[in-house]
């Protein structure tokens, strides 16, 4: 259940490690150096090597086009969509989501808000979007590409999700409970893999998102991400969906209150960190 892999953005550590490796292998203690490099460090080295040239950029391009192009039965673009910073404001919007929206009277994450805009502004029936909300090898997903575009516009912006609104506070509290909710044939919860520091599943380091602020920040700000194993850019709703699949849970409804609450919990845990996505993952 390797759900969130630790970031690709640990450059300083990388350089330090690379230097160590170099220094050690040049020394007479070359044999000892062999074991000084751990497999986790080798994986970090691999991630560093692929960090340049992220195909997620293509999904950002696709999403931007979709955002600006008139579409749906109403032949409207999404340029009037309010993502929480006013109609049409995309820059920095993702860093403040989830948020409470007065018009829908609920807390919404990015994808549920895009769903609102696509249905209200463009007139696309909700079921048409939610029937297949995730990209597949055969077919791209508009809502997913739109999300990739929007998150890219928060690159370099510090995460600041406010819990001042009581509804957001409540969403956070419910999300925390869902994180710890153990069920299904394997008794798994998110916490099974993501509540201990310094452990890994197979070769992948697992971030502790319950009590390690840095882990939570790195994990959250690296999504959405292009997954090289799938050759697709994956949204945050997809990330949660696939977590639950591997937890042997039934499927969470797309953009449901449960997934938004969990997102709120994780997003708040990442507050203060610079958003660096869309990322590039295994």
């Amino acid at each position, binding site marked *: 259940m390797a759900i969130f892999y630790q970031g690709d953005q640990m450059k300083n550590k990388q350089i330090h490690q690379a230097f160590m490796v170099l220094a050690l292998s040049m020394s007479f203690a070359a044999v000892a150096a062999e074991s000084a490099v751990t497999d986790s460090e080798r994986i970090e080295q691999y991630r560093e090597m692929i960090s*340049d*040239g*992220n*195909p997620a*950029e*293509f999904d950002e*391009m696709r999403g931007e086009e979709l955002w600006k192009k008139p579409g749906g039965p109403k032949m409207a673009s999404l340029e009037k969509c309010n993502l929480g910073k006013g109609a049409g404001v995309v820059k920095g919007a993702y860093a403040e989501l989830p948020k409470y929206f007065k018009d829908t009277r609920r807390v919404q994450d990015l994808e549920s808000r895009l769903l609102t805009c696509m249905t209200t502004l463009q007139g696309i029936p909700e079921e048409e979007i939610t029937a297949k909300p995730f990209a597949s090898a055969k077919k791209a997903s508009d809502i997913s590409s739109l999300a990739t575009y929007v998150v890219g516009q928060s690159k370099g912006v510090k995460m600041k999700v406010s819990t001042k609104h009581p509804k957001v506070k409540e969403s956070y509290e419910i999300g925390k409970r869902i994180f710890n909710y153990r069920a299904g044939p394997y008794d798994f919860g998110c916490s099974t893999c993501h509540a201990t520091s310094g452990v890994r599943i197979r070769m992948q380091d697992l971030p502790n998102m319950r009590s390690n602020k840095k882990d939570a920040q790195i994990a959250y700000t690296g999504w959405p991400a292009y997954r*090289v194993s799938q*050759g697709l850019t994956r949204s945050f709703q997809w990330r949660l969906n696939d977590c639950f699949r591997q937890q042997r849970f039934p499927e969470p409804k797309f953009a449901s209150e449960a997934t938004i609450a969990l997102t709120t919990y994780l997003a708040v845990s990442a507050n203060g960190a610079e958003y660096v996505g869309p990322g590039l993952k295994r």
Partner: protein
Amino acid sequence: MGNPMKIRAAVKEGVTEVKILMQHEMETGLRKEADGTLVPAWFITEVKAQYQGRTVLEAQFGQSVSKNPYLMFRFKGGSAGEKVTVSWVDNKGDNRADEATITG
């Protein structure tokens, strides 16, 4: 026509570094669908990069190059504002050409 590429070209101390990311499935022809049918081979076979009408890199690809191919190389010369052009053809005869402006 194929999907657009992302090309970045930057000159430093008289050497231009070019990074190219292409959008292509790069199907090996060995992968099977869930129902067992073979997905036909579909991959970029040739890539060419040019600067001022001069070829600065030529590549031939086989099926083993990763999906959304990435290339990085360096050539002597180039100055900010000039263009680098990259094009590819695949085994189905489809192709694509894009250009990028060299940055300083």
